[in-house]
């Protein structure tokens, strides 16, 4: 049986919630015991916190790891995991940076953005994932005889219960050469100011289904009809097209919102978009009855938004 590891991300001594999901995922793959890997500079607090969910914790403490530069962390992780191991990570911008290269350097299978685990049969790991922007699901089999690097979609599995009490083993001496041709400089945060969609009680949120820049006006009119508690937000393609400003983007690379009501209009429901909606009821309007947004929404309407939005605006104005 392969050895199972989970790379645990942390900030300010606090481990990410996804750590418990990684522990649960490893169990679903048949792991008896799972080892957390915690890297950084001065990581005792994070390492002992990881012991809550894992049977053992490898701590790699090194000034070169102070910021998680994937090119450096990859070397450290590759140095401490034995050949044939399964390494789990939470699918986010760090895992996307480190995972593919780690799989090559450890000669392991790479399976990204796993949404479900069906189990292990011999050396065949069976998982579920999505393709085509989440619009379709697939069963995937991977031969993990030589190990695997697996990234798990956040929220895809129920987190494991804590209380495991794994001990911390200091592996700092085994990290080896941590030089890299990519150097971290700084993290730049976007300028504050402008519209604040996080305060709105109702979000009129539009996606690529709005089709043309001129149609943004339809969403603005609906917002006006609802009144001061409403604001217009959007999915990423609308910001990429520069039709609306970045401060209006909802999602993992945009804002996290908790309105009373989230109206998702012509939004397919990618996990990166849904990752930014943390509360309230979601009402989705989409012309595709199989759009993944209907899995996540509380209420759904199959309609063409270009007709539906003006009709709704008119009715609200008549109230």
């Amino acid at each position: 049986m392969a050895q199972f590891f989970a790379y645990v991300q942390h900030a300010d001594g606090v481990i990410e919630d996804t750590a418990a999901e990684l522990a649960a995922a490893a169990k679903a793959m048949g792991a008896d015991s799972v080892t957390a890997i915690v890297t950084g500079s001065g990581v005792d607090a994070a390492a002992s916190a990881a012991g809550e969910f894992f049977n053992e914790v490898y701590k790699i403490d090194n000034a070169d790891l102070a910021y998680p530069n994937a090119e450096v962390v990859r070397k450290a992780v590759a140095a401490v995991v034995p050949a044939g191991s399964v390494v789990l990570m939470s699918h986010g911008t760090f895992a996307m940076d480190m995972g593919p290269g780690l799989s090559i350097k450890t000669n392991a299978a790479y399976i990204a953005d796993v949404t479900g685990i069906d189990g292990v049969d011999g050396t065949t790991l069976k998982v579920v994932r999505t393709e085509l922007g989440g619009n379709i699901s697939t069963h995937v089999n991977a031969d993990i005889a030589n190990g695997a690097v697996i990234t798990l979609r956040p929220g895809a599995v129920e987190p494991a219960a804590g209380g495991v009490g794994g001990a911390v083993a200091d592996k700092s001496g085994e990290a080896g050469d941590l030089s890299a041709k990519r150097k971290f400089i700084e993290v730049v945060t976007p300028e504050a100011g402008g519209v604040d969609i996080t305060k709105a009680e109702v979000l009129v949120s539009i996606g690529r289904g709005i089709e043309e820049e001129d149609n943004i006006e339809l969403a603005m009119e609906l917002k006006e009809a609802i009144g001061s508690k409403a604001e217009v937000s959007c999915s990423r393609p609308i910001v990429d097209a520069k039709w609306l400003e970045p401060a209006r983007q909802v999602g993992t690379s945009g804002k996290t919102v908790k309105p009373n009501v989230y109206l998702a209009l012509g939004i397919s429901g990618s996990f990166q978009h849904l990752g930014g909606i943390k509360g309230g009821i979601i009402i989705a309007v989409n012309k595709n009855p199989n759009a993944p947004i209907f899995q996540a929404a509380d209420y759904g309407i199959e309609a063409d938004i270009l007709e539906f939005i003006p009709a709704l605006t008119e009715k609200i104005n008549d109230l």
Partner: protein
Amino acid sequence: MEILVCVKNVPDTGEEEIELDGNDLDYDELTYVVNEWDNYAVEEAIQIADKVGGNVTVITVGNEDADEVLRREMAMGAGNAIHLEDEAFEKSDAKGVATILKAAVDKGKYDLILTGAQADAGYGAVGGMLAAMLDYPYASLVNKIEVGSGKLTVGREIEGGNTEMNEIELPCVLSIQTGINEPRYVGIKGIKQVSGVDIPKFAASDLGLDESSVGEEGAIVKRQDYFIPEAGEGAEMLEGSDDEIIAKLIEILKANGGL
């Protein structure tokens, strides 16, 4: 600067509902387009070459239909194209695709290799794998590039709209995130202009590739099927005439503090 941009021909899923034929896609119902992310990568490459000089080459691993994608990117302004085509390449997993691309990279000399941050299958893997195979540094989800001497300053998009700035030595591989630029429009006229261009093709043997390391034989990660998940605990769908649906919706808005 010699820039290579990896591009992929993918099903267009923006408009139409995806149709299944049993447990596979209904390929007759699909139209193909260049992967959204790859257009941003090509645009970025062209802008860099315009600024500091150099050439842009687009490359794809794909069947004969992928020719169209290469021509589209040439119409955008890429000067050269390379088509890697062989039956033996079919059903490659991401590692297989990276292995094929690596063999082609070894035959040229590139300072900068760009990929999209992800494509239709959503692995976001080919760029990082290719970099590791070449022992080049890699940065994913790049949304900003400044060219320095022998190195680049790049911004990586991380969670919450933040940007992680890095310095990366050339040669390197970067995966490009949408929004980094505004890809130029390609008209029919532009496509016509490149329709006669001879695009070099290479098969496994031309690249010195062991066929068993790529394609279905080499794949360690294999898709078994396609399926549409059960609606399950999905949304309660509002039905009825348009007026009835809107009336129900207004009630729901009122009940939940929306109006």
